[in-house]
């Protein structure tokens, strides 16, 4: 039967093989363009970048050495950066000092603002000495005070600067996320790829494993496994141990994405063609199939960072993950566990805020990436 559509086809159709590079490039441009429209995701990405900058240059960017303790300043509340002194505006920001008083009967210390002490906040001040990445020795910190104290998020039970500890904690907590997904990525791509490429019994078995890992509660398992880490291990070893434990479960989501893509791509011609040409199978996988869904993988990876960060934080919080003297957000929150202490020094909870912000950002970025990579996928 005669159908209008047939006759109405426009003549400009079909991209020939020579233009393939061009179309790949435009696809990436398209993704970037779509992502940039997602404002919340872009802002989140910037925030994440800032977080990681702080983690990388923690020594320089934190005002103090995170282990530097001083019993004179235990549980000191946060000092605010100010521009107004007695109602008068001044360009150079400063902090007021604080003095402590101890109640004779209860032995409770209370802190009071002391407006007679005024310390200017300066850039590039000399402070605690450090070695950046164990390479560069210096005493210069991005910002700080030359005399007096500047504890912008207060201090902990040993008088250590919370802000510096949070910055250093970010180094561990945030890198757990990255390292974790790096391991998950390897396991996920291999398992998902094998599952999707070979299908059949292999696929069935791997699917059962994934299903299994997804249907049992992970936390008890993590807890038990982290106890099994030898007590003689160093902080660094424990750190890697924890990351591995977290990734043992974290790869399943990625494997599913990879498998689904492989399944749909398996039938596509260029793979068949490569097989017919006698190309090595793994070469087929890595050369031809992987690039075509990199964007999905990135989105899926981003979305699995939060569970890694949450996992480390939860384990360390309970006291089964990293422990003092390691500094991570979870370890810091572990100090906030005693409610009586917390009630007097609520700023001890502030690492939690950073956890929430980091996870929010990763979720937004992941959502944005996923939408940009594939506007039609639902979950």
């Amino acid at each position, binding site marked *: 039967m005669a159908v209008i559509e*047939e006759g*109405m086809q426009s003549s400009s159709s079909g991209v020939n093989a020579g233009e393939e590079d061009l179309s790949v490039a435009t696809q990436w441009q398209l993704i970037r363009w779509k992502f940039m429209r997602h404002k919340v995701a872009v802002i989140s990405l910037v925030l994440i970048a800032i977080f990681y900058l702080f983690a990388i240059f923690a020594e320089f960017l934190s005002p103090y050495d995170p282990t530097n303790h001083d019993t004179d300043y235990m549980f000191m509340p946060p000092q605010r950066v100010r521009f107004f002194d007695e109602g008068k505006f001044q360009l150079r920001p400063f902090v007021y000092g604080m003095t402590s008083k101890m109640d004779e009967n209860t032995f409770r210390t209370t802190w009071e603002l002391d407006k007679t002490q005024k310390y200017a906040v300066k850039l590039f001040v000399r402070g605690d000495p450090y070695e950046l990445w164990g390479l560069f020795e210096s005493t210069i910190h991005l910002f700080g005070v030359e005399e007096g104290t500047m504890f912008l998020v207060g201090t902990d039970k040993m008088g250590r600067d919370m802000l510096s500890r949070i910055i250093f904690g970010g180094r561990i907590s945030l890198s757990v996320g990255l390292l974790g997904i790096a391991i998950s990525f390897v396991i996920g791509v291999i398992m998902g790829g094998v599952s999707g490429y070979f299908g059949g019994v292999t696929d069935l078995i791997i699917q059962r494993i994934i299903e299994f890992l997804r249907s049992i509660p992970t936390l008890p398992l993590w807890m038990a496994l982290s106890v099994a880490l030898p007590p003689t291990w160093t902080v660094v070893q424990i750190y890697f141990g924890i990351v591995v434990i977290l990734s043992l479960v974290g790869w399943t989501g990625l494997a599913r994405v990879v498998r689904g893509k492989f399944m749909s791509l398996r039938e596509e011609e260029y793979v068949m063609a490569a097989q017919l040409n006698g190309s090595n199978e793994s070469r087929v996988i890595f050369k031809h199939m992987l690039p075509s869904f990199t964007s999905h993988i990135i989105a899926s990876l981003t979305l699995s960072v939060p569970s890694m960060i949450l996992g480390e934080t939860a384990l360390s919080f309970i006291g089964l993950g990293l422990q003092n003297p390691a500094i991570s957000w979870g370890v810091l929150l572990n100090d906030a566990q005693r409610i009586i202490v917390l009630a007097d020094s609520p700023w001890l909870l502030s690492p939690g805020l950073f956890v929430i912000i980091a996870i929010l950002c990763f979720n937004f970025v992941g959502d944005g990436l996923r939408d940009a990579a594939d506007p039609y996928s639902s979950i």
Partner: protein
Amino acid sequence: MSQSPLLLSVDNLATHFFSQEGILEAVDGVSFDIHAGEALGIAGESGCGKSVTAQSILRIVPKNGKIVTGAISLLQNGESVDLVQLDDRGQEIREIRGGEIAMVFQEPMAAFSMVYTIGNQITEVIRLHQKCSQDEARERAIEMLQRVGMPIPEQTIDAYPFALSGGMRQRAMIAMALSCHPSLLIADEPTTAVDVTIQAQVLELMKDLQRDMGMALIVITHDLAVISELCDRVMIMYLGKDVESAPADVIFRDPKHPYTVGLLRSVPELGEGHTQELDPISGSVPSPYRRPAGCPFHPRCPEFIPDVCDVELPPQIELTGGHRVRCHLYVQD
């Protein structure tokens, strides 16, 4: 032809969609009349606004769309109601939907919900518009299924839609639409989703039913053969506008609008099989967001008049015998 009374009159209807990308003028100035018992065909390229026209009549345009101007008057028992003025969730329009005007949708696959049986979904509309018990409604549904040629209707009525073939689903869809004896049936591409043999059956069925039940019919289609088979009048749409409308035999014999001319030429000679060379209209449909100024067809028009067609919107011109066309070529002054 115009002996029977006027049933529905659409006057200068415009329905636009609003989104981040801008305003999409899906339907932009469409007028036509339908008389009782008459069959009107609406044809045009994909995306020209045929389905949205139908949705506008029933007031079921998706919520990002809105009827911006125009009137749709339905004449019932000598009284005229402007459907555009009704509250789209109100009682009045709901009594008309499914009762007075029913619709057969483009995709029978998706038109039924998969979690209820066919019977459930058909009796629902019967009980909504006719006072009767559940058993009576079921009785009528079976009767209707029988009528559209559904094999063993007593059993199919309890089948889930996913268990039916495409053709059976389309029959069930038609049965559902007809179950309350509407005076107007809108069939949106009733045959595209089914294969060729079924297509013929469905067309035959619609023709018979229309004749038996004396209802008016709007057939929306890509397929000019369907129109020549079923329709008394034809309206050709292009980019949301009704570029030409005329009695069916007139259009096929003497098309006026350059678009219609191209359209008919691009189609193999009707009734002569499919061996003829196609002569497609050059160029492609412009982006729906950036409609050309003046006559929407001018970038592709072989008869294009410079400084007129790309500037001024052609008016609708009445030719003889109910033939109307929107084209500067026919402006007389």
